[in-house]
């Protein structure tokens, strides 16, 4: 099998750890995984990532731990690996040559730790003492001290990432909405999402014995992934892993959109419910605005419920680009509709661990959803659906929609909304820039992903959500029987 290409080297390391863990789960040799896998990945004797192979192995051992589910005591899906973060050489505050070595040197006076001294008529920051409070930068009249923000801190638009006194990154679980931006941004791979891939392996193993059906529901963003194979081959590959069928999550998106259209008529204002990070952001940062969150379940939950109504006793695994879906599926409000969530990265590792080369497989069709459900993967997709379908679905009132692309835009808009100054009444929010097609657990990130999603939408057999809504109604009747 060809060496897999990822956007970053950190993704490749994560992939190697995941693949090894899955292989061992099937071979029955997980016991020694944390000890043996790091040695397999870094055989030595030379190290090329960190100071020595022992540190590389220590970090890898943590990656293996995360691949096996991480810390069960920590409710957050995102965890830091302190031993990996410690290595980060970047000082947050840096004295540029613009420093004049002035007489006042306010920077020295304001530093609470005495970290600044003047050497050769220029300020110098003692990195050991600096606690990155930023007072020196603010006090300099020349603006000569600049903040070189850490990639993780920069990536976190809602201030949930802090730096400890010992300089490792710490996540504030009360603020974090698990968007996963820090996971993809950290160049050392020191922030990682928990993997539930072993739960998925267990579900499939049990299903094989008990003849239970396990359905995979795949997020529409998948069409911009796996560039080396056709989507129909990926579907066939997923079936080869032991799944009974592969269904588009976009079908659930059709239903979510239909329900949101119904809701819109009765509500003054509404924020969308499909992005769990957006929902969590409102809940945790603007509790006053909770009343505006749409009560329609997310597409993942909606399609999983539909499948479970038609196939009682089955299990459903969601495969997507999203970190916060790993949190959402465990929430009580989802009624256990989804049994496990894995990422595209984990799917890649799973396929390779089982020796399934999708590029050589035959094609298995995938066509459950409408155009509108499929374009939920991009920022602005839901808004487009609402705009184009509102008349058809009898919405009489004036709809003024806005699509908030990424947490930065969301933050600005929610501040306004909280102050009663947001004029729009339909508020779509996607925590990831560009939408799900740029989710943190995508194999590839890029501007072209949106073209793939639009093309996929255009190829749908259904160009309206009516068919999915009719099926929803039909299976709802099943429930009553």
């Amino acid at each position, binding site marked *: 099998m060809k060496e897999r290409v990822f956007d970053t080297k950190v993704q490749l390391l994560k992939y190697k750890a995941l693949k090894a863990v899955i292989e061992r789960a099937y071979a029955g040799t997980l016991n020694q995984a944390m000890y043996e896998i790091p040695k397999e990945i870094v055989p030595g004797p030379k190290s090329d990532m960190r100071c020595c192979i022992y540190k590389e192995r220590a970090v890898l051992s943590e990656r293996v731990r995360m691949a096996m589910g991480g810390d069960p005591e920590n409710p957050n899906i995102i965890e830091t690996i302190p031993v990996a973060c410690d290595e980060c050489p970047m000082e947050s505050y840096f004295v540029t040559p613009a420093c004049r070595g002035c007489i006042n040197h306010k920077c020295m006076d304001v530093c609470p730790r005495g970290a600044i001294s003047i050497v050769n008529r220029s300020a110098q920051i003692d990195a050991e003492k600096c606690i990155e409070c930023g007072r020196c930068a603010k006090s300099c009249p020349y603006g000569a001290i600049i903040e070189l923000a850490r990639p993780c801190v920069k990536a976190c638009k809602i201030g949930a990432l802090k730096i400890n006194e010992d300089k490792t990154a710490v996540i504030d679980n009360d603020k974090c909405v698990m968007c996963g931006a820090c996971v993809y941004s950290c160049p050392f791979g020191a922030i990682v999402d928990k993997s539930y891939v072993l739960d998925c392996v267990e579900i499939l193993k049990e299903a094989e014995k008990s003849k239970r059906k396990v359905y995979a529901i795949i997020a529409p963003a998948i069409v911009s992934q796996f560039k080396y194979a056709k989507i129909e081959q990926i579907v066939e590959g997923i079936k080869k892993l032991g799944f009974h*069928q592969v269904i588009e999550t976009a079908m659930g998106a059709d239903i979510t959109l239909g329900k949101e259209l119904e809701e819109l008529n009765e509500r003054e204002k509404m924020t969308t419910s499909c992005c769990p990070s957006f929902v969590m952001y409102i809940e945790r940062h603007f509790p006053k605005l909770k009343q505006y969150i749409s009560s329609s379940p997310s597409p993942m939950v909606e399609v999983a419920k539909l499948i479970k109504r*038609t*196939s009682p006793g089955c299990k459903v695994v969601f495969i997507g680009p999203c970190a916060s879906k790993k949190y959402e599926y465990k929430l009580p409000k989802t009624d256990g509709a989804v049994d496990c969530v894995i990422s595209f990265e984990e799917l890649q590792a799973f396929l390779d661990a089982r020796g399934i080369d999708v590029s050589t497989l035959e094609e298995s069709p995938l066509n459950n959803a409408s155009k509108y459900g499929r374009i939920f993967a991009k920022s602005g997709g839901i808004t487009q659906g609402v705009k184009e379908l509102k008349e058809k679905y009898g919405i009489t009132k004036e709809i003024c929609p806005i699509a908030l692309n990424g947490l930065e835009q969301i933050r600005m808009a929610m501040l306004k909304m909280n102050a009663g100054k947001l004029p729009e009444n339909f508020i779509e929010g996607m925590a990831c820039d560009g939408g799900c097609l740029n989710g943190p657990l995508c194999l590839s990130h890029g501007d072209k992903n949106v073209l793939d999603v639009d093309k996929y939408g255009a190829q749908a057999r259904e160009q309206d959500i009516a*068919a999915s809504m*009719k*099926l929803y109604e039909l299976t709802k009747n099943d429930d009553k029987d």
Partner: protein
Amino acid sequence: MEIKVCIGSSCHLRGSYEVIEKLKQLIASNGLEGKVNLAASFCLGKCGTGVTVTCDGEFLDGVTPETVEGIFKERVLKAL
């Protein structure tokens, strides 16, 4: 009696949604609402030959949006 129509990808592409609509109409026009239950299922395992339809677990062959009415009369109405 339960009629199940496959709504998996292959059958959808062959028109299973239309088959469901026609069956709904046929059940209604023949006044069979209480007697015949129409259900959907994701994949009944015959992706090559669909639209796959079962009637109390028995496969009905050759169902398409065009043939469904005739097959309904032949297999369902006569059995009731």
